């Protein structure tokens, strides 16, 4: 069957109307940009929710400015109600994980970058790709609708621990909880469709000469992430469906009164949840690898070890989920094995950090905005990774479980890690998306202010956690032992408002540059990737003739390229051999 082929797919794309071109597009670049705008909206939503959480923790019982806009069911006299506060915590986590960070990393950049990086015209299945976006959009809309139904959105925390989530009589929410489950099922379908597309594209649609070990690390990371997504999301889907049945048709999966097992939910959720953690960080590591090599004007240090570290992290990610459940009454022997496998993950992670530093070592470093953010990623990831080692150790975890130490850790990897990598990626591939550059000066101002205020918000949370500040409490001043920490909470809250305000610099830079930004040159960062052989923005169908690849993507400052300090992947030197003719399957469609 390998040689069965259809009549050749000639790349000619007719001019299309607005709707086909920008709304119901099958062009991977437009779909990536659609994901970008929708996910940035949900990032803003998650941020607004976070500000309300911080107000309540910093100034409990005081009327919140602007709370008059909220209905009586959420705030009375400007003071947030406990029932609303727990919705805020739940939906902040849900929106940030499922509708902001994950689609920003995967939805935006897997779509936008993979075909451009490996040299092909589009995804293997462009229409499935479009379906993937619209399903994600639908899932986001369903989740958002939770705030507008009676009793509001889910109140069980983003991890939806049963039986609180399974029994409306316990949580006091029925419709909002049902919407959460439906939204996650739809989102899971979207992720699976997207991921199988990325996998098929990377395997079957690489340009001639783009061998496995010439693939840029960003694409390697997105490829491995897609494998995680395709295997992890269905488990969450299954769990969410069972939870939905518990709420609607009277099943007893997670209801201990009828013989069900609440711990089963935790196992199913974290069996998905820990691979999900790497879905949220591996692509960020990939972007940072590309950008640090570019900013250091040096080949990436240890390319092969980087690839195997990505694969190693992804593999180990499947056998560590129990470390979220050390406090669930787990057998200590089993707990120890989860502890060891979790500690093992720090080995490939440390290899990556070492390689990033090895890349920068004695490089001719250019601190452009993407490079600044990528460097911050490395620094913040080290802090987040090291606090992760502490909580991987069972005895320490028992002490800090469900405290602000956990909140600090996860924000160091998700904000300090993923989001800084995303700020780098936004700036770096902005010219490829929109044909213009973002402002370098405002980018630097945004970076430094974010970096400082970010650490002012999340570093003190470690101290709060060590002092025993619980994770999801409504009013810390109710506890005598937390009263001395209240000034710290106020400091964090004020810093968080500053951090939030600073993000409007980014938003303004992003929006204004769409029209007023400097016109981008074809290769503004002097990079080697195939995407820069195209005009900015690239046309539908990308290349009329796909370029041939002669080397890996990190040939910076090569003695083979006198006069320039970079050597693009498609440039043929007299010494380069043509790629051997291969018996490949038919080109897509």
């Amino acid at each position, binding site marked *: 069957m390998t*040689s069965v082929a259809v009549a050749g797919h000639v790349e000619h794309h007719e001019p299309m109307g607005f709707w086909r071109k920008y709304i119901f597009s099958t062009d991977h670049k437009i779909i990536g940009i659609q994901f970008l705008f929708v996910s940035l909206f949900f990032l803003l939503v998650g941020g607004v929710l976070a500000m309300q959480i911080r107000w309540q923790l910093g100034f409990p019982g005081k009327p919140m400015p602007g709370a008059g806009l909220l209905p009586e069911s959420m705030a009375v006299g400007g003071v947030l109600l406990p029932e609303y506060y727990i919705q805020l915590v739940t939906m902040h986590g849900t929106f940030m994980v499922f509708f902001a960070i994950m689609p920003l990393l995967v939805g935006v950049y897997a779509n936008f970058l993979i075909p451009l990086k490996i040299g092909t015209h589009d995804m293997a299945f462009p229409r499935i790709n479009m379906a993937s976006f619209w399903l994600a959009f639908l899932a986001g809309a369903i989740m958002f609708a939770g705030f507008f139904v009676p009793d509001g959105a889910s109140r069980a925390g983003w991890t939806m621990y049963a039986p609180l989530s399974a029994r409306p009589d316990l949580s006091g929410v029925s419709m909002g909880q049902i919407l959460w489950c439906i939204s996650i099922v739809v989102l899971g379908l979207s992720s699976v469709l997207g991921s199988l597309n990325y996998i*098929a594209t990377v395997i*079957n649609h690489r340009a001639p000469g783009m061998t496995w070990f010439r693939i840029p690390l960003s694409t390697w990371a997105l490829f491995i992430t897609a494998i995680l997504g395709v295997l992890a*999301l269905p488990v969450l889907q*299954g769990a969410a469906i069972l939870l939905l049945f518990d709420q609607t048709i009277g099943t007893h999966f997670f209801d201990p009164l009828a013989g069900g097992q609440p711990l089963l939910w935790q196992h199913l959720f974290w069996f998905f949840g820990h691979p999900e953690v790497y879905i949220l960080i591996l692509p960020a590591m990939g972007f940072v690898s590309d950008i640090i090599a570019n900013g250091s004007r040096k080949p990436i240090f240890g390319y092969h070890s980087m690839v195997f570290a990505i694969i190693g992290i992804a593999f180990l990610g499947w056998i560590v989920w129990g470390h979220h459940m050390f406090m669930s009454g787990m057998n200590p022997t089993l707990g120890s094995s989860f502890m060891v496998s979790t500690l093992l993950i720090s080995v490939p992670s440390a290899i990556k950090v070492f390689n990033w530093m090895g890349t920068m070592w004695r490089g001719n470093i250019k601190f452009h905005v993407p490079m600044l953010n990528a460097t911050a990623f490395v620094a913040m990831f080290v802090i987040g990774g090291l606090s992760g080692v502490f909580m991987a150790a069972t005895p320490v975890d028992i002490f800090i479980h469900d405290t602000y130490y956990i909140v600090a850790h996860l924000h160091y990897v998700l904000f300090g890690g993923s989001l800084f990598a995303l700020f780098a990626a936004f700036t770096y591939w902005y010219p490829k998306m929109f044909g213009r550059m973002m402002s370098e000066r405002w980018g630097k101002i945004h970076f430094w202010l974010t970096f400082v205020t970010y650490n002012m918000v999340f570093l003190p949370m470690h101290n709060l956690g060590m002092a025993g500040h619980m994770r999801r409490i409504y009013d810390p001043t109710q506890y005598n032992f937390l009263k001395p920490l209240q000034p710290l909470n106020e400091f964090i809250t004020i810093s968080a408002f500053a951090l939030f305000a600073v993000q409007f610099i980014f938003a303004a830079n992003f929006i204004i540059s769409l029209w007023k930004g400097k016109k981008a040159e074809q290769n503004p960062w002097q990079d080697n990737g195939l995407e820069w052989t195209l005009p900015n923005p690239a046309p539908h169908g990308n290349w009329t003739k796909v370029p041939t690849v002669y080397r890996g993507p990190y040939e910076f400052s090569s003695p083979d390229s006198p006069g320039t300090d970079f050597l693009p992947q498609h440039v043929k030197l007299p010494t380069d051999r043509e790629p051997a003719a291969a*018996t490949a399957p038919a080109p897509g469609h």
Partner: protein
Amino acid sequence: MTHAHATTADMMRAPYPAEPGAGIYSNKLGMWVFLASDVMFFTALIGTYIILRFGAGTPWPQPGAVLNVPLTAFNTFVLICSSVSMVKAFASIADGNQKGLRFWLLMTMLGGAAFVGVQVFEYIKLSGHGLLPSGFTDGSTLAEHAAGDPVKYGLASAGLYGSTFYSMTGFHGFHVTCGVVCMTWVYFKALRGGYTQQDYRGVEVIGLYWHFVDLVWIILFTIAYLI
């Protein structure tokens, strides 16, 4: 499978062919990846069943006590036959036999539809006897039997039994239904002569899905009905 079809596409891929990929075309690769994700979905459902059944600590209903095993054994036979007819459809078009393709596709569709029909009939009967996802309904035939012989009918586990039985078999039935819908689409394409001896990828891809769903059923039939 023959390897001698040099088609226009091969010649148009100038000057160099793309990098060798998986060695199979993308539609088939995509279906394999999708099936891998579906394995994980059923793993969640079946894993839940294993945990709940063996973690319950109370007797589980004995095989045949609640469910009509002969009826479902017949239904299993129908589904396996539809897998055979799927293979016949695939073999027909590989030989260029359009008539055979249409006939065996139709047989496969009918087999799948019959399976779903029998399953719906079974669900109606079962709920009539009193097995619901929440357990045995009060005052139903099954509740009375179970009160007389609580061990055989696994009275204490009835809620978990109903929950797992309907979720596992229901989602399998949903998969078969989706398969029949897609098969109908393939069938109408085949009626228009949409598949040739050179290109019958759609038939092979739907066949993969169909055999997978069949395989899942054999596992589900064993664990939900026979043990």
